[in-house]
């Protein structure tokens, strides 16, 4: 363990840029939810209405948490947001521990560290301490956000501790996974799978008799029931489990060679498949895993929204304040809800489009574009290869959103025609999503160094305009700058082709301009 504290300081320094954003994200989730819930359900009557509506709606319970939380307004907030705060903190812990242990070992940096006066267990111990520091900060900030928005201190303290405890379990799980796998992506894959399983188990438990929720770290946190009974003893479970996992990680660490894992990496093909013979084949090969993950995630997101669509009218009747969040002034509550959720998910699809286009930039800066462009692959083919994945991938992502939404809704109302209807409706957003991807192409072509920043600002801008245009009282021109504002909100509004064609045309012009830049400039890391 020699050198642990020195390493911890070094790790804090390395993480100083990213960490604040994770903490801010977790805190903001709770803060916004707290304000919104207190506004909507602040009265005892509104809360009673909500209990009645949600008590019998298993879709909402599956997405949120156990119903006993709904006894108080604070509990309602925890009910709605705890799982998501827990996911953010769990991911933060996973990335911190994974990057600082197996990530460094795989990259060879850990070798330098281990060659100096540093014990074998020190890097893992320091990474875990780093996660403890980060989780403690997250818990403290959540506590502050809760008390600042007027929630009782006792429950807020319990909530903060529950957040910390969930983070610790995933930090410890990552430490174990880092001993098992030889590369950090496999570590993230395994821990991410367990995080998904934790969410699914508590969903199954909360809608059933509750037994399965006790197998989930997220369930442990929720079942402390902050503000709704304040049970302290369930905190012991994650603490004991984390301690056991850390001991397991240490035992595995002592038994393995540096750089090795207990799961050996499998050999792959010794010759390339015929598909890997041009720029398209390469781009597809490099991006397929990410594409499949995004499409599955977005289909699930759509299904989540779709599963509650049928009860939305009853919900709005019980909680008329919610009307102000729906577009169209409540002409058709159901269509307004479907249009709203499609629009929100389309923003996520735009984010996927940007990650896909930015792959070009990553290939270039890592030096991997160079050997490809030193073959008969033209810059146009190289661009077209990655861009085709981005364009087709975003179309697939939107279809998955609409398909998931439609399927879940179709199952609740026994109307299969909803699947093609909503999948088609989702594709209305394709030109807008392509336009954001085209912004990324433009910046990769002309200002590669600023590409990531500019593209993400474009996405963030559309999100802000889409979600908060009214709350921030943005001027009309600022709203009109977002392509999503010009996209007809089907199924609430009728489909009109002209704006879609215009957006598509702008996207085509930006893409062509991006290629013109790429053709002229130097390529290199």
């Amino acid at each position, binding site marked *: 363990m020699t050198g642990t504290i020195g390493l911890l300081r070094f790790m804090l320094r390395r993480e100083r840029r990213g960490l604040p954003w994770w903490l801010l994200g977790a805190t903001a989730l709770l803060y916004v939810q707290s304000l919104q819930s207190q506004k909507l359900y602040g009265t005892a009557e509104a809360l009673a209405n909500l209990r009645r509506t949600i008590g019998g709606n298993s879709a909402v319970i599956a997405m949120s948490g156990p119903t006993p939380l709904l006894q108080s307004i604070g509990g309602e907030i925890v009910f709605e947001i705890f799982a998501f705060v827990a996911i953010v903190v769990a991911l933060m812990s996973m990335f911190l521990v994974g990057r600082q242990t197996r990530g460094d070992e*795989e990259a060879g940096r850990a070798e330098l560290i281990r060659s100096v006066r540093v014990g074998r267990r020190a890097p893992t111990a320091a990474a875990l301490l780093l996660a403890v520091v980060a989780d403690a900060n997250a818990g403290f900030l959540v506590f502050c956000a809760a008390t600042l928005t007027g929630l009782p201190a006792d429950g807020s303290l319990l909530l903060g501790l529950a957040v910390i405890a969930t983070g610790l379990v995933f930090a410890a799980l990552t430490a174990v996974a880092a001993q098992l796998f*030889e*590369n950090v*992506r496999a570590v993230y894959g395994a821990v991410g799978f367990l995080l998904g399983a934790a969410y699914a188990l508590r969903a199954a438990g909360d809608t059933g008799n509750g037994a399965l929720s006790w197998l989930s770290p997220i369930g442990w946190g929720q079942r402390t029931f902050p503000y709704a009974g304040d049970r302290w003893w369930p905190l012991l479970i994650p603490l004991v489990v984390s301690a056991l996992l850390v001991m397991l990680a240490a035992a595995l660490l002592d038994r393995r060679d540096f750089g090795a894992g207990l799961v050996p*990496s499998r*050999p*792959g*093909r*010794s*010759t*390339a*498949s015929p598909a*890997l*013979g*041009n*720029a398209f*084949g*390469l781009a597809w*090969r*490099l991006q397929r*895993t990410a594409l499949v993950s995004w499409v599955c995630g977005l289909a699930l997101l759509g299904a989540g929204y779709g599963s509650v669509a049928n009860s939305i009218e009853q919900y709005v009747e019980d909680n008329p304040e919610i009307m102000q969040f729906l577009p169209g002034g409540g002409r058709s509550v159901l269509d307004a809800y479907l249009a709203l959720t499609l629009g929100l998910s389309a923003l996520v699809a735009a984010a996927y489009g940007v990650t896909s286009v930015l792959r070009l930039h990553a290939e270039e800066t*890592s*030096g*991997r574009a*160079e*050997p*490809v*462009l*030193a*073959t*008969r*692959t*033209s810059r146009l083919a190289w661009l077209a290869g990655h861009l085709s994945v981005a364009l087709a991938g975003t179309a697939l992502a939107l279809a998955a959103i609409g398909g998931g939404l439609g399927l879940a809704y179709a199952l609740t109302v026994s109307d299969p025609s909803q699947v093609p209807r909503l999948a088609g409706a989702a594709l209305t957003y394709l030109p807008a999503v392509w336009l954001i991807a085209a912004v990324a192409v433009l910046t990769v072509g002309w200002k590669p160094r600023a590409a990531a920043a500019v593209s993400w600002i474009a996405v963030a801008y559309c999100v802000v305009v889409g979600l908060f245009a009214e709350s921030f009282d943005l001027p009309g021109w600022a709203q009109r700058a977002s392509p999503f504002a010009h996209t007809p909100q089907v199924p609430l509004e009728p489909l009109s082709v002209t704006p879609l064609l215009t957006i598509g045309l702008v996207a085509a012009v930006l893409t062509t301009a991006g290629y013109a830049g790429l053709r*002229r*400039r*130097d*390529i*290199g890391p």
Partner: protein
Amino acid sequence: MATGPAISISVLSKSFGPVQALDRLDLTVPAGEVHGFLGPNGSGKTTTIRVLLGLLRADAGEVTLLGRDPWRDAVALHGRLAYVPGDVTLWPGITGGEVIDFLGRMRGGLDRRRRDRLLEMFDLDPSRKARTYSKGNRQKVALIAGLASDAPLLLLDEPTSGLDPLMESVFQQCIQDMRQDGRTVLLSSHILAEVEALCDRVSIIRLGRRVETGTLAELRHLTRTSITVETSEPLTGITGLAGVHDAVLEDHRARFDVDTARLDEVVRRLAPLGVRSLTSTPPTLEEMFLRHYGDEATPS
């Protein structure tokens, strides 16, 4: 096409912001020649090769590759050249065998027999994912991908960094074979033994400018030969001769360096003194290198 030089660069300049990477560089490589491209780190070797690949656009100067402009005709030219970078990054999830096949196909096809023979010669397991390769193995992947092609021109940018001596000799054998086949090779390197063993001619670049070019014999002409001599008559007047440096004299023995160009005069002067023994050591490229980079005196 084969009439002109394979590579012709004149007064090529390239700067990155305030950094002048290439400063009026000249370089000519006739077809069929193995040309050594020597220089210390940061002297502009890689920038030159990237300009030749059409990845960087020249600020000024004329560059032709196989008679064509590498910026305008990059894609057509890339079908006729193979490139091996010195600092190889690969796609972590793709196997070495797949990378070799992919780059070969993208270059316009690859000879499977030669590929398999090279895999065997370089002792590389093609079924491992690139993330599990060591630096040397990543280098082998890029080398095999390049050497498996039958392109008439090879651009090799420090291709043996990270290879062990055994693999280094396999590489040298491959380049000898290419010379036999009449292919042109531009070999950027700072491993002098490799250049001495392989190259017909050498260009030395420093701070973005060429400082020497020629055959090894011609370049040696510009350097000093070390002489140790023992004579029957006492040695006098040696120190004063033009071209003699660092002389250490005892009455019948002397050790000194002499400018190779003045070797003849010095030997004539020694002959009447009754030479009993004489050893001369030809200058190595190492010494040439040290003369160019070791001291600040830039030849001009």
